[in-house]
């Protein structure tokens, strides 16, 4: 399977120009910093007390003016240029050129590879830049590129070669203009900032606004990324629903992907497996985690607490794949010994045949969630004011009465929130169920049977050599989106509960 990454070798070349440009802007920044600082100081006759701001602020201001617009434009340019060139080159390829069963995307892959190959050839000196531009399709381009280590699937057709050459020249022009524009912006910013650096210029306020902008960009990037993830899932899901009926996906009864097409792709059996396993996991994790939290926060002495709490939190640091191995190699066989093997088993029953089962995955996932529940609950219980406990103890309640009737009710919203967060982790958990739960999609209430979950199906539908545009592959995105909506809903619900029942303590 070859999957050409966009511009590998071409990339290194462009990177080098980009890197030089970047360093040039940075150098200008440093120069601007010292120039502006000294100019402001000189304007005040060397007496820093006469400046509005500390001298470093004038320097920082100049550096900011030089770098931010220039580097911002550079980043946008680097992102936008390939897209624009691509559209232009795509227009050059006649529609008749695209073979049956092929697509414009595949032809464009060829174009990019030829262009990259030419770049590589020029760089290694096998071809002069001029020759690369004039190269005709009659010469053995494929053989020449193969010598340079660029393998092409078929002979280079004239249209592709022409497109590749246009691609190269457009990229070169684009790079040149980028250098001009970026350097121009840097110089303008540099000039403005340095000329502004007089003693009464409020550099400190400008820098303050710059810092505010930086923080806002960071915050919005995180939100925009989430939005981007949702949108990309959404588009692929729409593609899926174009080729597969939504009614089957949401309301069908069976999951049976079939690579010849005509598959049953219903989420319901997977959803059932997911919820069943999560339920078992929570039944294990919530009581144990909560009791552990109560012991640690209310009863344990400071010394024990100092040792036990980090130990418990180590559980949270174990990679889930290790839990998966634990499920497969230890818990599963142990359960088989109890519930399976007929007369040789501990119970003498034949209820369980393989190590992978809902119970196996649920138990191990529960163990994984214990530190999650206990750590969050511990924090919440500790946040209940001591005055509550004193009041209850002062009325003659025992410690456990105090915890049951005063501390836990006061901490309840937070604990419910912790449980719901644990639930959304359980629903999204992948590795434990891949290894521990099995791969059979079905509705069954028997926890000793193998079942499968949404996450494991996403993994199996996207791994392997499948056609990317088939419903069997695209269903992974619809599953992912459903999973996302499910966990998002749980989190929102958790937040609402926490808000609604939150008690105000002074």
């Amino acid at each position, binding site marked *: 399977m070859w999957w050409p990454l966009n511009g590998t070798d071409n990339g290194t070349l462009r990177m080098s120009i980009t890197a030089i440009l970047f360093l040039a802007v940075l150098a200008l920044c440093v120069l601007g910093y010292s120039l502006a600082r000294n100019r402001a100081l000189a304007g005040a006759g060397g007496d820093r007390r006469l400046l509005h701001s500390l001298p470093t602020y004038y320097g920082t201001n100049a550096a900011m003016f030089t770098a931010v617009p220039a580097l911002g434009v550079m980043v946008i340019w680097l992102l936008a240029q390939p897209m624009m060139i691509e559209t232009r080159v795509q227009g050059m390829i006649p529609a008749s050129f695209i073979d049956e069963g092929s697509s414009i995307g595949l032809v464009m892959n060829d174009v990019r590879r030829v262009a990259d190959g030419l770049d590589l050839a020029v760089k290694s000196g096998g071809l002069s830049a001029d020759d690369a531009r004039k190269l005709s399709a009659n010469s053995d381009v494929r053989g020449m590129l193969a010598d340079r280590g660029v393998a092409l699937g078929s002979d280079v057709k004239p249209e592709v070669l022409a497109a590749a050459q246009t691609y190269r020249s457009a990229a070169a022009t684009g790079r040149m203009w980028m250098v001009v524009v970026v350097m121009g912006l840097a110089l303008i910013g540099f000039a403005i900032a340095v000329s502004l650096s007089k003693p009464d210029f409020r550099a400190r306020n400008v820098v303050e606004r710059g810092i505010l902008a930086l923080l806002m960009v960071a915050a919005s990037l995180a939100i925009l990324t989430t939005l981007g993830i949702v949108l990309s899932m959404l588009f692929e899901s729409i593609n899926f629903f174009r080729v597969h009926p939504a009614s089957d996906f949401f309301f069908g009864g069976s999951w049976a992907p079939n690579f010849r097409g005509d598959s049953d792709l219903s989420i319901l059996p997977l959803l059932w497996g997911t919820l069943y396993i999560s339920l078992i996991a929570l039944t294990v994790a919530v009581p144990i985690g909560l009791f552990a939290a109560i012991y640690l926060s209310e009863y344990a002495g400071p010394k024990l607490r100092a040792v036990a709490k980090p130990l418990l939190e180590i559980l949270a640091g174990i990679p889930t794949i290790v839990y998966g191995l634990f499920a497969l190699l230890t818990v599963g066989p142990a359960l088989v010994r109890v519930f399976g093997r007929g007369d040789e088993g501990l119970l003498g029953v034949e209820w369980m045949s393989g190590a992978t089962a809902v119970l196996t995955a649920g138990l191990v996932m529960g163990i994984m969630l214990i530190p999650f529940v206990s750590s969050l609950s511990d924090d919440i219980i500790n946040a209940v004011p001591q005055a509550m406990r004193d009041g209850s103890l002062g009325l003659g309640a025992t410690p456990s009465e105090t915890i049951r009737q005063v501390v836990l*009710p006061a901490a309840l919203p937070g604990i419910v929130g912790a449980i719901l967060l644990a639930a959304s982790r359980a629903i999204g958990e992948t590795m434990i169920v891949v290894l521990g739960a099995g791969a059979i999609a079905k509705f069954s209430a028997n926890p000793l049977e193998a079942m499968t979950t949404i996450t494991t199906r996403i993994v199996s539908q996207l791994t392997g050599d499948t056609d990317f545009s088939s419903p069997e592959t695209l269903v992974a995105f619809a599953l992912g989106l459903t999973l996302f909506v499910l966990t998002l809903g749980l989190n929102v619900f958790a937040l609402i509960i926490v808000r609604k029942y939150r008690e105000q303590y002074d």
Partner: protein
Amino acid sequence: MNTMRLTESAVDTDIKITAKDVQVYYGDNHAIKDVSVEIQDKTVTAFIGPSGCGKSTFLRCINRMNDTIDVCRVQGDIKIDGEDIYDKRVDPVQLRAKVGMVFQKPNPFPKSIYDNVAYGPRIHGLAKNKADLDDIVERALRRGAIWNEVKDRLDAPGTGLSGGQQQRLCIARAVATEPEVLLMDEPCSALDPIATAQVEELIDELRKSYSVVIVTHSMQQAARVSQRTAFFHLGNLVEYGETGQIFTNPVDPRTENYITGRIG
């Protein structure tokens, strides 16, 4: 210490609490030194003294709340009705039902007003049935002088009341278990003057049924509500006697300096 005690004559009530040579340590810190005191029944006794003098610590010894602090050790005898409360056979939980406590900051539980007051009776099984519990709650709220304000909203959360109402609710909660002694640790320090006046009036009412011990920073308050006053200084009980006499004619120069504002 007995030399410090003055005229016992005017008092004809019984002794409720007897403390003898009480020492309290927080780790290495000797917080209470050789305190001996006799607290009378149906009387309000005020503990006054500068911050950190040990008056709250001594108060918390009387219902063994100091047991909940790991580093705290108590030595000496404290007897209530002649029974040593630090005896091994005494269950501190039972003791605290008999010796109620009201804290500095109002601390209603995040429950309804009704459940706040019913909390103690329910734990100790004081009510025979629901109607009986309703009675107990109403009586306690009336004694807490808050019944008229909350009788129409017993299901509302106790945390939603104003500060002064919350503190009276806490007093009602404490009297609901029918204690014999009521300990109050600066019960008005978080309240405004009007709420303080209401609580002080209430304390005077409570004196008819209980032995009340109140810790306060306000000497005016001690003078207003108490019949007997004890002055603590640096972990020592400096002087103990009738309130009028302590405030008008103190024996110890340290007491005089404190009440005239020269130390503290």
